[in-house]
C-alpha cells in the first residue's frame, strides 16, 4: 500500500502526544502502529487493491466523539453517530438491565478491564496492514454491550453518517453476554462530497448460547474507497447471523468473517452487493469451523452493472477436530452488462473427514424464464428486469429483520438500477 510511513509515524506520535485518552487505548494504538510497516495486506483472491489510497495522513486527532446518552421510556434503541456526536437513545428498562451503548473512550475509562479483554482481540492488529493502521488510528468508535441473560425484543438501530472531510476509522465492538439475544440494524452512509477513505471494523463477541442478528444497509458514496473488516467470535452454542447489504457507490474491499470457536456454534453469513459504473468490489465471506458440531452457512448474491468489477470469495474452512460440522456456501453473481466483470469463487479448505460441506457458485445472466413471464404480462423490459433482479437478491433481502430497512434497501436498489439502465 502506498503511503509515506515516516510522515505517518511523525503525525501518529504527535497526535498521540496531544490526546488524553486512557492508557489502555494509547498502548493498544502504539502496539498496533508497530505492526503497520510489516504486516501483509488482506488477501482477496482475484482482486487487487494494493494501490488504493486507504491509508492516509489525514487523521489529525483521535478525538473519538463522546456519546450523549438519553434515557427514554419507550422501547426503541436508537444510536446516531456523526463524527461530532454519538447520540444514544436507550430505554430506561434496558439501562437497568445493564445494557451499555457508548463511545469507546468513555467505555475504556469506565470499564478498562472489559475493553482490555475484548477490543482488538477478534481482529488483531498484527493480522494485516489495514487492521494495524485502523487500530492505531481509530477515530470513531462505539461499543454495544448486552449482559448475560438479557434479551431485547426490538432491534438496536444504528445510523452512522461519515459526513466530514477527514479519514474515518470506525470501530464497532459488540459484546453479547451468555444467553443474551438481540438484533442490530446498521446503516452506514456517506455522501459524494466526501473525499476521504473509510476503514470500517466490526468485532462481535458472541458468548455461550447468545444470539446476535446483525443486518446492515450501507450506502457509502464517497469518492475514496472503503475497507471492511467484520468478524464474529462465536462460542459454544452461540449464533450469529449476518445480513449485509453493500449498496455502496465507492470502491469497496473487505471481509465478513465468522469464527466458530465453540461447540455447536452457528453462523449464517448472507451478503448482497450491487456494483455500477467503474466501481470495484471484492469481498471475502469466510466461515471457519473450529469446533465439533458447528454450522457455517454462506450465501452471497451480487449484481454487476456498467463497467464494474465484482468478486465474491466464499471461504469455508473446517479445522481438524471439528467433527460433525457443516459448511455450506452459495456464491451467485448476475452480470447485467457485457462490460462488467466478476467472479464467484468457492474456496473450501477441509481438514476433517466427518463433516458435511457443499458449495454452489454461478456467474450468469438474468433468468430468462422469469423475465419472459413478466414481459408477457405487459411489464416493460426495464421494470421487469428490476423485478427479476430483486427476486435474485431477495433471499438475502428478506433476511434483514426490519421491514423499513428492507424497503429502504429495495428503494436504493431500484434507484441504482434505474440510473444504470
Amino acid at each position, binding site marked *: 500500500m502506498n503511503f509515506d510511513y515516516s510522515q505517518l509515524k511523525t503525525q501518529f506520535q504527535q497526535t498521540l502526544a496531544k490526546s488524553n485518552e486512557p492508557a489502555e487505548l494509547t498502548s493498544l494504538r502504539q502496539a498496533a502502529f508497530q505492526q503497520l510497516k510489516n504486516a501483509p495486506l488482506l488477501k482477496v483472491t482475484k482482486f487487487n487493491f494494493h494501490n488504493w489510497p486507504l491509508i492516509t495522513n489525514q487523521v489529525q486527532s483521535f478525538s473519538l466523539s463522546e456519546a450523549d446518552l438519553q434515557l427514554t421510556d419507550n422501547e426503541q434503541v436508537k444510536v446516531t453517530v456523526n463524527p461530532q456526536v454519538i447520540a444514544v437513545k436507550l430505554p430506561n428498562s434496558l439501562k437497568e438491565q445493564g445494557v451499555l451503548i457508548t463511545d469507546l473512550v468513555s467505555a475504556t475509562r469506565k470499564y478498562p478491564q472489559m475493553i482490555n479483554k475484548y477490543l482488538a482481540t477478534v481482529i488483531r492488529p498484527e493480522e494485516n496492514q489495514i487492521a494495524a493502521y485502523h487500530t492505531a488510528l481509530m477515530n470513531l468508535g462505539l461499543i454495544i454491550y448486552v449482559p448475560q441473560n438479557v434479551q431485547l425484543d426490538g432491534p438496536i438501530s444504528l445510523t452512522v453518517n461519515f459526513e466530514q472531510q477527514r479519514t474515518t476509522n470506525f470501530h464497532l465492538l459488540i459484546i453479547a453476554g451468555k444467553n443474551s439475544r438481540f438484533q442490530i440494524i446498521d446503516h452506514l452512509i456517506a455522501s459524494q462530497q466526501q473525499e476521504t477513505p473509510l476503514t470500517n471494523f466490526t468485532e462481535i463477541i458472541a458468548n455461550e448460547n447468545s444470539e446476535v442478528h446483525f443486518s446492515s444497509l450501507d450506502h457509502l458514496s464517497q469518492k475514496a474507497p472503503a475497507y471492511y473488516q467484520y468478524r464474529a467470535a462465536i462460542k459454544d452454542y452461540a449464533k450469529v447471523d449476518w445480513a449485509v447489504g453493500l449498496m455502496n457507490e465507492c470502491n469497496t474491499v473487505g471481509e465478513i468473517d465468522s469464527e466458530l470457536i465453540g461447540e455447536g456454534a452457528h453462523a449464517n453469513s448472507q451478503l448482497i452487493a450491487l456494483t455500477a459504473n467503474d466501481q470495484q468490489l471484492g469481498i471475502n465471506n469466510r466461515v471457519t469451523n473450529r469446533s465439533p458440531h458447528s454450522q457455517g452457512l454462506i450465501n452471497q448474491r451480487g449484481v454487476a452493472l456498467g463497467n464494474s468489477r465484482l468478486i465474491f470469495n466464499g471461504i469455508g474452512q473446517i479445522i481438524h477436530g471439528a467433527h460433525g460440522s457443516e459448511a455450506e456456501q452459495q456464491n451467485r453473481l448476475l452480470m447485467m452488462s457485457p462490460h462488467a466483470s466478476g467472479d464467484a469463487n468457492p474456496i473450501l479448505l477441509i481438514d476433517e473427514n466427518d463433516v458435511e460441506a457443499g458449495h454452489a457458485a454461478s456467474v450468469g445472466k438474468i433468468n*430468462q424464464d*422469469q423475465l419472459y413471464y413478466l414481459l*408477457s*404480462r*405487459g*411489464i416493460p423490459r426495464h421494470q421487469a428486469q428490476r423485478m427479476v433482479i430483486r*427476486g435474485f*437478491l*431477495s433471499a438475502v433481502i*428478506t433476511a434483514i429483520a426490519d421491514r423499513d430497512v428492507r424497503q429502504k434497501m429495495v428503494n436504493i436498489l431500484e434507484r441504482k438500477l434505474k440510473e444504470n439502465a
Partner: protein
Amino acid sequence: MAILQIKDLHVAVKDEETHQQKEILKGVNLKMQTGEIHAIMGPNGTGKSTLSQTIMGHPNYHVTQGDILLDGESILDMPVDERARKGLFLAMQYPAEIQGVTNAEFLRAAINARRPKDDQISVMDFLQELDQNLELLDMKESMTERYLNEGFSGGEKKRNEILQLLMIKPSFAILDEIDSGLDIDALKVVSRGVNSMRSPKFGSLIITHYQRLLNYIVPDVVHVMMGGRIVKDGGPELAKKLEAEGYAGLRDELGLKIDLVDEDD
C-alpha cells in the same frame, strides 16, 4: 371488436442436442375475433404449445414463414411486452416463480403498464377489483401478499394465471393446458373464471388434450392440430367425437401420414 389472424405460420425451434433448427409448425392458419372462444386440440408433440409461445413472442421460437396479425397489423417484430399491452395474454403451463415480488405488486405493475403514467390505478380500485376476483376464484386474500407463484401448488398457480387474466382483461387470452394437473373442483373454478370474461370484447384460444375442459368452457370453434398444421375445424361436437375415437382415428379418416408421438408401433 379485435381480430387475431394467423397466416401460413411456419415456426422452427433449435434442438438443444443437435443445435439444428427443427420445423414444428408447418403452415398454421387460424382466424378468430373477440366474442369467440376457440379450442385447439391435438396429440402430444404436435405444436400446440409452440403456437401459443410464438403468438406471445417467446425468443426461442423462430418464425420462418407466414405472419401473425392483430387487427391487421403484424406483431412479429413486436417485443413480448408490447404484444401483451396490445391485448394478448398467455396463461402458461409452467408459470415462473419470483421471490421478493409480491403477487399484488406484480398485478399492479401489469395493470399500470397499460395505463398512462398520470392515470395509474388507485389502491382502492385495485383492491376492490382484486377482492372480487379472488372471491370468484375461491382464492385466499393472503395469496396476494405471497411472492409471485413461489411455493404455490400446481392448482394455485393455475388459479393465479386466471386471476391475472381477470385483472389484466386482455382482448385475447391463450390458455395453454390450463386444465393439466387440476382436480375436478379446481377445473370448475378455473372455468368459472374464464366464463366470467366472456363478452364481445374478449376472445380466447384454449389449448387442451382433453375434451373435459370443454364441457365447462364451451367453445364456438374447435380446431384439431396434427403434424404442425390445423387439419380439421368444427363445433363442440368435434371435441366429443375425438374423445370417443381418438386422434389416430381422425388421422386415418383424413388420410394423413403423420406419426403420433405416443402411438404404439
